[in-house]
């Protein structure tokens, strides 16, 4: 694949996404300024602290450029990145990009002592995915056009709509690249 995937690198686990993409032979570029989005074919919003990432998006003039970029390019948001993709967040400290119509609930699973790893069910692959959840957010009130892509017990943990995908767990912390592969193959169809 010749296209370059941007990875937002303001704060958080961006380097782990670079490693996942490199395993798949996908070129990537760290994004800290709006101009760096140029020539990127897709964008990953990584996990980290959503209050920090939200503030730095504004301070670095990336908020509007990413919204504009997302109109025509696929975006994958993970954990804090998923919160940034929501249309609504249960916390005024975060100003989301509103790329997907759902509500994000911060720290839905509680503090770090309640973080865990467990198998989740994917709708696009019969084999389960062993997923780390780190102070993970919840996906609430998805609108009708949103497709559920993965569940853990009763909870929705991954959704997709059009080009975009959002998930509350961390595939980049595992050696399993199926989530990244799914998003990249899905984005080829748009």
């Amino acid at each position, binding site marked *: 694949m010749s296209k370059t995937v941007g990875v937002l690198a*303001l704060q*958080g686990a961006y380097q782990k996404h670079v490693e996942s993409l490199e395993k798949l032979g996908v070129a990537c570029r760290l994004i800290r300024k709006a101009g760096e989005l140029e020539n990127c074919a897709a964008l990953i919003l990584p996990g*980290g602290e959503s*209050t920090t990432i939200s*503030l730095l998006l504004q*301070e670095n003039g990336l908020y509007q450029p990413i919204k504009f970029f997302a109109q025509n390019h696929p975006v994958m948001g993970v954990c804090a990145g998923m919160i940034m993709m929501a249309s609504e967040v249960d916390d005024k400290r975060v100003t989301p990009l509103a790329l997907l119509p759902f509500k994000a609930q911060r720290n839905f699973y509680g*503090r770090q002592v309640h973080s865990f790893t467990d198998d989740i069910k994917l709708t696009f692959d019969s084999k389960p995915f062993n997923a*780390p959840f*780190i102070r993970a957010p919840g996906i609430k009130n998805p609108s009708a056009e949103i497709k559920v892509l993965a569940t853990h017990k009763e909870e929705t943990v991954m959704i997709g709509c059009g080009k975009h995908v959002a998930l509350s767990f961390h595939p980049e*912390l595992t050696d399993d690249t199926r989530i990244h592969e799914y998003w990249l193959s899905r984005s080829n169809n748009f």
Partner: protein
Amino acid sequence: MTDNSSKKTNSNNDDFKVKVGLAEMLKGGAIMDVTNAEQAKIAEDAGACAVMALERIPSDIRRDGGVARMSDPDMIQQIKDTVSIPVMAKCRIGHFAEAQIIQALEVDFIDESEVLTPADDVNHIYKHDYKVPFVCGATNLGEALRRIGEGAAMIRTKGEAGSGNIIEAVRHMRALQSEMARLTTLGQEQLMAVAKDMGAPYDLVCYVAEHGELPVPNFSAGGIATPADAALVRQLGAQAVFVGSGIFKSDDPAARAVAIVKATTHFDDPAVLLEVSRGLQPGMKGLEMSEIPEEERLAGRGW
């Protein structure tokens, strides 16, 4: 549960992965020492990725003397109730009862810290026993690997806390980086001798020789007082920074906190570093290392 119960092997791999996972989420960020809810709010609003709750910042501990212990749980609770970012708290080296209390309080990270007065001059805490991840200080690679062997999910340089002087953090980061680089040049047959000399677990020595880095995130602490200090340690290989006395001992904590957050993100972009370095009030005064008597240096605590 005590640290002295029957010998255990390392904690379950998934548990450790989840602990290191939170450390991964803090990368590229600034973790700030705060002593009350108001400071915690300032830190969060400035973009801190976590706060360290403690009663006295290191420069005041240094000034006041006496025994420095775990902070009052009520004070830590107030800070937890005020901010949504992860909250860390310190326990004394080897004081596993303090660690148990902090874990029961559901703090997100425990710092087994040389800034407090050590409780055990031989043993550090067996950290695999806990669900809450630990960060520990190190001055060189052997020390870092011993702490990881005990279960630390993050390593930070010790630096010299409360000094406002970056020289010790630089010394420790350079020692760590050059020792790791050296290991990658050695043959497999040399690694057991290295493990013996360093007093470090053999399997972790082999990991570093193969990968050229620690198996857990590697941050910097101790003496960071300016945006330029944050950028310096980041360029030397620190994946995030702890800022202790540097913010709330300066004349303009809120502005300095924002500047340090930005400098941590844009650590290799001098144009941004220049911009965020402008217009700040004077930083904390700081101490020359020669002003700190050998027996008062915090980095020498632990082994």
